[in-house]
């Protein structure tokens, strides 16, 4: 064998070895996560909203809100009633529906909260948001570990107009807060990390109708995005994850939020024990060729008009 042939064979071997190292070994040592589905788990269906986010935003301009039952017709619907004890001693009873669905890229979370009305901490000079968040025990260990994952949406109703004014989105992390609470809490990732990362939000539409005080929202968040330091929900194609999850709804006031949760609240009395949380299944193992009921896609360029 000539030295040229030997060199060629060695080069080929080197390329194969490198490919093996970079592509095969990670899959051997980091196999796809395929969790077993437990009894009673909430299986999030494959779907896409039946209207684009642009269409939903335009609808809010006409009607104040959009019809979440139509927009998320093929989603998993969970009904609950939040009861929030307010600062004046009254209780706001808020019949609500949370909608969950996913496609290969995004988790869609919708919400309809009837009877929210404006935040009593708002006045003629400033308005405070009313917030909904979904929290995930990503590893499903029953014990929270930093950073976990979560999404918080705040809707601001401006008084005295009593009209929808704006929305905001934050990724949420489970971290130690050493200045005020001096304990592990769920908090907005951008408050903790002071920015410097890409949040998980893809698109969003929110609305408010003041006759019934109803807030509607729909947002899509990436199932995988380059922000692992604040977000442990990083699903690969072909994976099936079972995660603990929790919903919370509150009126914001500095250091005195008023909150309720489903199946029960933890806000203000946070515990790392998530063993009692319900289970959510996101299964990316068998993507359908078409999505049920969908006639719109998420704008790949994000919000634009």
């Amino acid at each position, binding site marked *: 064998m000539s030295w040229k042939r030997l060199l060629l064979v060695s080069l080929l071997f080197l390329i194969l070895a490198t490919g093996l190292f970079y592509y095969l070994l990670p899959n051997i040592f980091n196999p796809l996560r395929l969790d077993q589905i437990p009894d009673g788990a909430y299986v999030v269906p494959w779907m896409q909203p039946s209207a684009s986010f642009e269409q939903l935003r335009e609808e809010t301009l006409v009607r104040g809100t959009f019809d979440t039952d139509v927009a998320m017709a093929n989603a998993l619907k969970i009904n609950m009633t939040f009861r929030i004890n307010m600062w004046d001693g009254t209780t706001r009873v808020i019949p609500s529906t949370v909608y969950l669905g996913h496609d290969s890229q995004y988790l869609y979370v919708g919400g309809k909260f009837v009877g929210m009305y404006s935040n009593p901490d708002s006045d003629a000079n400033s308005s405070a*948001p009313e917030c909904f968040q979904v929290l995930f025990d990503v590893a499903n260990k029953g014990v929270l570990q930093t950073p976990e994952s979560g999404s918080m949406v705040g809707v601001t109703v*401006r008084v005295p107009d009593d009209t929808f004014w704006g929305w905001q989105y*934050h990724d949420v992390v489970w971290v130690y807060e050493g*200045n005020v609470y001096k304990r592990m809490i769920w908090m907005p990732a951008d408050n903790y990390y002071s920015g410097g*990362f890409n*949040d998980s939000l893809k698109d969003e539409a929110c609305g408010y109708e003041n006759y019934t005080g109803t807030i509607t929202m729909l947002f899509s968040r990436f199932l995988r995005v380059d922000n692992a330091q604040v977000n442990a929900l990083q699903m690969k194609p072909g994976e099936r994850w079972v995660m603990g999850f929790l919903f919370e709804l509150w009126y914001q006031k500095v250091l005195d939020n008023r909150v309720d949760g489903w199946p029960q609240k933890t806000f203000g009395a946070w515990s790392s024990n998530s063993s009692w949380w319900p289970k959510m299944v996101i299964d990316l193992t068998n993507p359908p060729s078409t999505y049920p009921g969908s006639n719109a896609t998420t704008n790949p360029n994000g*919000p634009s*008009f």
Partner: protein
Amino acid sequence: MSKKMTFGSQRVLLPLIAFGVCLLILAFSASARPAYAGDSSPPPPGASPQTRTDPGGGGGPPPSNKIDGYVFNPKTGHAVPNMKVYAALDTSEDCPTYTYTDSNGHFLINWLTILPNRIYYVTVNGGYQLDGSDTLGSVCDDSSYGQWREKDISDINGYISCAIDLEPRQVVIVPYAALYSNTQYCQLMTYTSTSYHDLSFSASVGSTGFESTQAMTVSFSWGVKQRNDSYIGKHYYAVGYWDQEPNGGLKNTGINGEVDPNEGWRQFNISEYLVPDSNKPNYGLPSGSQAKWYGIYGNSPVSFHYSETSSFTWSYGFSGSLGINFDFFGVSVNLDVTATVTSGHTNEVDFSILLPDGAPTHKFLVYTQGFTFIENVTGGLEVHLWDLGVIS
């Protein structure tokens, strides 16, 4: 008779002598106490340290070889307990010693050799650290209060007495983005940032320190259906650092942490402070930013999508008048806010204008504070939009 008189004199004299002795003891003990020691309440707020009496004297030896004093909150007049107090000889500031105030705000350093007629620096809530760093103007030991430094000269006995006013932190609003719109035809405006902005602060008095920059990420949308002049912001703490050297002054101010780590953005109403004048270049609006007008007719929505990914910095136009205002030690301070987007990160502004079907053409003026935009590229998180009326 004389016995009775003698007995009677003793009955009068003995209590008098006892009373006199008590008075002497009381007078001695009172004069021997340091200033304010044993007082159940601290001195009134605003009392100048220079007017406070020097301890010592009376029936005991003069105090020596120690530094002691009190730390008070001048806003309330109450003592500040559990506050870290540093002392260092002028020539050895990198080797300080420290103690903590007690429940009466009193501190005492008596384990050093305090040389007579020498300069010592006493600092509170920060100072030179054993590792050689200096936390004055940057990091407070207790984030609830600002910082203080004074230069003292020990007396001939090696004694220093201090009375220190330590200002507590104050709550301020840090603005992030602002929108001014006088038209109901601007339908929806969205600000998104795929990464973060650095907000920098500059002070009208002294310089800035502590958390002089804040990196923030925002995903926010305004639903604009009517005139809307407002900004979004959060509650932060501000602190001040007072230095008696050389002439006494507020040396450093700045932001020192969020009030509530769980707080989201809050909306605040403001008033438009600019008035466009179509007879002047750039509509008479501040230079450094560009105004551009658009003619838009009925039922023909026009969308604006501005995106900026290169590094740029701008100042908020409104922060000079309502950004972050507070006062420390009676000194009014305004922190101006400057924002920077780091290169490679994206700042996006979207809005659309839609007139009803059949509406005549309106002229709209768009102005973004602090940045000159070239067609569909802009920067800044302060946008002004005016409906200038119908055009033929």
